[in-house]
Every structure is written in C-alpha cells, then in structure tokens.
C-alpha cells in the first residue's frame, strides 16, 4: 500500500494526468461532476455522491456513430472510429464501479454483439475508486452487496485523516502504481484504513435505508407475472411527471436512441441516452408499446429489479447510489417501489 498527504494530492494528480486525461469530481455551478483535471480545479473528494455518475465517461449522453456523405448519386458511409485514447478516472465510488459492471453485462457480455464504442473506453479507461467514509442518508449500496469501504476498480483508495492510501487491484492498477510511485510513500500495515472501513460500514448499517435489503427478497426473477400485475403500480406511478431525471442520473440506465441529424451537406447518425419514462420511447409504426405513464414507470423498475436479474444470474441493475432519491422532482423513487411492492411500508 502507498500513501500521500492530501496536502500533496496535486502531485498525484499531475503524475496521473501524464498517463492520459485525468477525470475527477470537480465542482462547477454548485454541482459536482467528473471533468478533466487541470491545476487549480475545485476537486471535491468529500462529497457523496457526484451529481452525475461516472457512466457518461464510458457511455456518453450523445455520440456520433457514422457520417453519411452524398456526392451526386453516390453515398459514402464513414463510420466513427472506436475510442482509443487512454484516460483515468479518480474518485469513483463503489456504487458507480458496480454501475460499470452492470453496463459491462449489457454492452460486452455477448461476443456477437459487442458495443465497440463502450469497449474502447473500458479498455482505455483506468478506474481509481475511492472508498466512502460517510454515506449520505440516501445511500443503500449495501442492499445490493456493494461494499462502500472496499470498492473494486483498478486501484482502490481511502482517505483517512488527511492521508490518501492507495492499493492496486488489477494489472492496469499496478502499472498506474508505477507511474505514481515517485510521489508516494510506502505504508506498512493497514490499521488506519481498517478502522475507517469499519466506521463506514457501521454508518451505512445505521443509514435510514439499511433495511431495504429485507424488501428485496420479493424481487428478482421469482414471480415475474405477479410483480408485473401488482395493483400497487397505479398508486406508485400516479405522481410520476414522466421526466427523465432518474434515468439520466442513474449509473446503470443504458437505453439509447439512434437518430439522424441533417447537417445540410450530409447526415450525422448519432446515438443518445433515452428514457423509458418518455412518451416516445421505443416509438414504432404502431405507436408506443407502453401507452401510459403507469406502464412506462413499471418498466423502469421491472427492468432493474426483475428482467435484469433474470437475464444476468440474479444481478440487480440498481447500485444504491441514491441519486434518483435526491433528484426526483416528486421524490418517487426505487427505494419506495422496492418497499411498497416488497411488502414493507415506508418508514
């Protein structure tokens, strides 16, 4: 394990940015989001959680797929090249790392249908995960087996008493460690970090949503039709305003739309995040297969808590990051849905 004083953390960032673009939680406009580091940036490593997840660095909100160019009667298709620029992300929380593991299932699991854009970024992006020391009241990653104190990633880091501790977890992590070793000191023994880990786990166990785990047993691929037909969806969805906030701040929502943009001298085909909450989601010639907000609302939670585990060996596609809890305009969220349908009333 290596360590560095937080007062020297800028030196660590400098070393990391020599490997490729370094993204960090940076404050701007009263918000924290992953943005490229530059000297003097307002880096926020205390805040749980960033307002936007790390998802956008690997699966951007908008990305060009191909360009169509017409010359006379000839149309040439110019595909976008796969991303190959190395970058590193520092300060990713355990829930967001789990979010990427969920996206890996969707985009990389099937060799015949690999998403090459996502793959390019995953192969070139190093994750330096930061353990949480004090979870927010909206945090419930523990319900999904995420350990906030021991994040996976290429490197795991802990901040305890103004010192950052660093431990490589993968081969790529080892290579990064070599790059930063000149500015770090060796640390023998793990007692300082161990105490912090225990404190973080205790804090999560005492958080308001700690009992959510109990309601999860009703979910999963158990009884799809019963959950689908639950009469509770009507009341739960009643307040939903049909915006896309929950889907866009979510670290795992992966649906996208493909659209064409007429540039005036050609066509840019791009994909962009889509939301199952929208009335034009999966719109086709026969209309929208989910005509009411009830059906659209139900889809989001059935996907995360039933269809996804059914397809991927029981893995839920919620990570308990809590963003949708703090961002929903009307505070209707997955925690309330899990509890209501899981048979446990809200506190």
């Amino acid at each position, binding site marked *: 394990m290596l360590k560095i004083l937080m007062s020297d953390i800028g030196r660590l960032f400098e070393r990391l940015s020599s490997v490729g673009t370094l993204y960090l939680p940076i404050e*701007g*406009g*009263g*918000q924290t*989001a992953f943005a490229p580091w530059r000297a003097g940036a307002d880096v926020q490593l205390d805040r749980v959680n960033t*307002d*936007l997840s790390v998802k956008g660095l690997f699966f951007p*909100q*908008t990305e060009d797929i191909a360009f169509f160019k017409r010359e006379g009667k000839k149309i040439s298709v110019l595909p976008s090249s796969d991303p190959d620029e190395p970058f590193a992300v520092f300060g990713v929380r355990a829930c967001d790392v789990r979010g990427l593991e969920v996206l890996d299932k969707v985009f990389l699991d099937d060799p015949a249908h690999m998403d090459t854009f996502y793959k390019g970024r995953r192969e070139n992006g190093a994750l330096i995960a930061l353990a949480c020391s004090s979870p927010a*009241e*909206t945090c419930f990653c523990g319900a999904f087996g995420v350990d906030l104190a021991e994040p996976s990633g290429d490197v795991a880091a802990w901040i305890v008493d103004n010192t950052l501790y660093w431990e490589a977890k993968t081969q790529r992590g080892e290579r990064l460690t070599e790059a930063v070793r000149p500015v770090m000191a060796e640390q023998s023994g793990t007692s300082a970090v161990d105490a912090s880990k225990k404190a973080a786990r205790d804090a999560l166990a005492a958080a*308001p*949503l700690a009992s959510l785990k109990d309601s999860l047993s009703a979910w999963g691929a158990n009884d799809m039709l019963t959950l689908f037909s639950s009469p509770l969806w009507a*009341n739960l969805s*009643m*307040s939903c*305003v*049909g*915006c*896309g*906030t929950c*889907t*866009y*701040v979510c670290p795992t929502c992966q649906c996208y*739309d493909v*659209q064409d*943009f007429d540039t005036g001298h050609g066509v*840019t085909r*791009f994909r*962009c*995040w*889509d*939301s199952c909450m*929208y*009335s*034009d989601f999966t*719109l086709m010639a026969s209309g929208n297969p989910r005509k009411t907000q009830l059906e659209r609302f139900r889809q989001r939670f059935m996907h995360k808590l039933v269809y996804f585990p059914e397809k991927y060996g029981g893995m839920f596609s919620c990570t308990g990051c809590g963003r949708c*809890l*703090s*961002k929903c*305009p*009307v*505070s*209707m*969220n997955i*925690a*309330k849905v899990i509890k209501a349908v899981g048979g446990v009333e*809200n*506190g």
Partner: protein
Amino acid sequence: MQNVRELMIKKAGEMLSSGEVYGVLAWERGDFACDQTPALFTSPESLSRLAYDEFTAPMLSKYLINEAKKPNEGKKVMVFLKPCDTYNFGHLLSEHKVERDRVYAVGVACSGIFSREKTLLEKCLACKGMEFHHCDEVIGGEGKITWDKLDRFAGVEMIESMTPSERFEFWRGELSRCIRCNACRNVCPVCSCVKCVFDNPGSGVMSKSNADEFEENMFHIIRAFHVAGRCTDCGECSRVCPRNIPLHLLNRKFIKDVNALFGPYQAGASLDDASPLTSYSVNDPEPGYKDKAKGGERVA
C-alpha cells in the same frame, strides 16, 4: 404546521366520508424529512400517511389536469394548494385545462419550503406573498414571511447589467450543464400542451438529446418564450433541475419586461383579465421599435 396538518387530515376525512369528493390530492410521507410525494388519497384511513411541513415541496395543481377529467360519477377531487400554487391553479382554470366545478380547492398555510440541505428555497426567499386565490376554503390562514425577502428581480437586473457577450457566456455556461431530462418542462403547470413540440417526431425539431452543443440552449429559450406572459413564477423549474440551472431567471426576465411595458401583471391571479401577451389594444407598446415613418428604429 403540525396543527395545519391535523386540520388538513380532518377536512380531507370529512370530504371523503361524506362522498363529496372521490379523492384528495395531497402529499404522502417518505423515508426522510424531505422526500414527500404527491398522492391521491381515496380513503379516510389512508390519511394517517398525509404529510405537511416545511419540507413539503412539490406543487399539486398540475395533477388536476388529469384528475379533474376522470369520470368518477361527476364527483369532485379535493386538492391542497400552497399560496403560490393558487396562481398555477388560476392559470390552469383560465386556459380551461381544469374545470372549476370538478375541484374542491383548499388553500393551506405556508411558512416557506426548505431543501434537503435545510436551506430556504430561492423561490421562497423571493416569495410573491402568502395570499390565496380561487380557493373554496383556506386552512391555517395566511402565513407570514418571517425571513429577509430577496428582491425577485435582483438576479435579472444583475444579468441585464452584463455586456451582451458576458450575458451570452453566462447562459452558455449555465445551460451547458443541461442533460435534457425535461424535468423543468414536466413539472411546469404552464407547460401543459397535450403534445410538446419537443416530443413530437413529426415536428422536425424533436430531440431527446443535444445533436450539437447549442441545441439544449434553444430548448430552454423556446420554452421560456412559450411560457412568457403565462409563467406564474412558482419557481418549480429551478427547484427540480437536477443540474442546478437558474431557469427562473429566464422567466423572471419576461415577467419584469411585461410589468414594465404593460403594467404590473401576475399570471394566474385573475380569471377574467386577458393577459398582456394574448390580448391586443391599439395602445399596446411596441418594444424595440420607435415610431418612425418607415421601417422604425431599433432601440435598446
């Protein structure tokens, strides 16, 4: 506020028991202090879950568009309205989005709304006043503004004092954070088109995301123009924005200009008055142009 909540539960229980209303639009408590959700209560027993305190944030008037249309044997729906939401209610009535005789409107006293971070919301700092409009009755009476009020138009004046390029940079910076979640539009009681042009694949301008970096700017500018003269300044757009964009400043600029050009006007306050931008009189000002014989002249 505890007392107001009890009075609300009592009234709602009476109205449900007597069968005068089929349901009551109110707020349901959640897991934390600040996560109350709008809900339709249909039985007196369920009312123990009704919440009302200084964290009760979402407005309920927009839900009336759907609720007041439901057949339910012609029965009314009861709704609780905060003072600022009564203007939204008035606006919806004036545009015939809601039928007045299908609603039993109850004003509820407000003492300002606090955020998750326990600070008073901007829209409350700039409170328009505690009086109620268009209500059948009021519970808890008119509240008092106990805090130092913010000048509603101070933010607009600050932007007006910028140079055009500073102003452009300010908005480009703020709007660059937009993720096109449509939360601002969807909570807005004035944004109540049956089919928004941005959701309509046939409109040619539909987009779920930003095809280029200027596009989300246009979305907000078009939306601001569409609600100009109709926006009640309830502040919901800024409250719900997950990216902390001060959208209310766009709307308040229009409100300030309408006030200056046509005289003080509050959308939703009256059901009778035609609004300045939807009515015509020969004396209407023509901002931007001086009365010249030909072509006019642009003025600042």
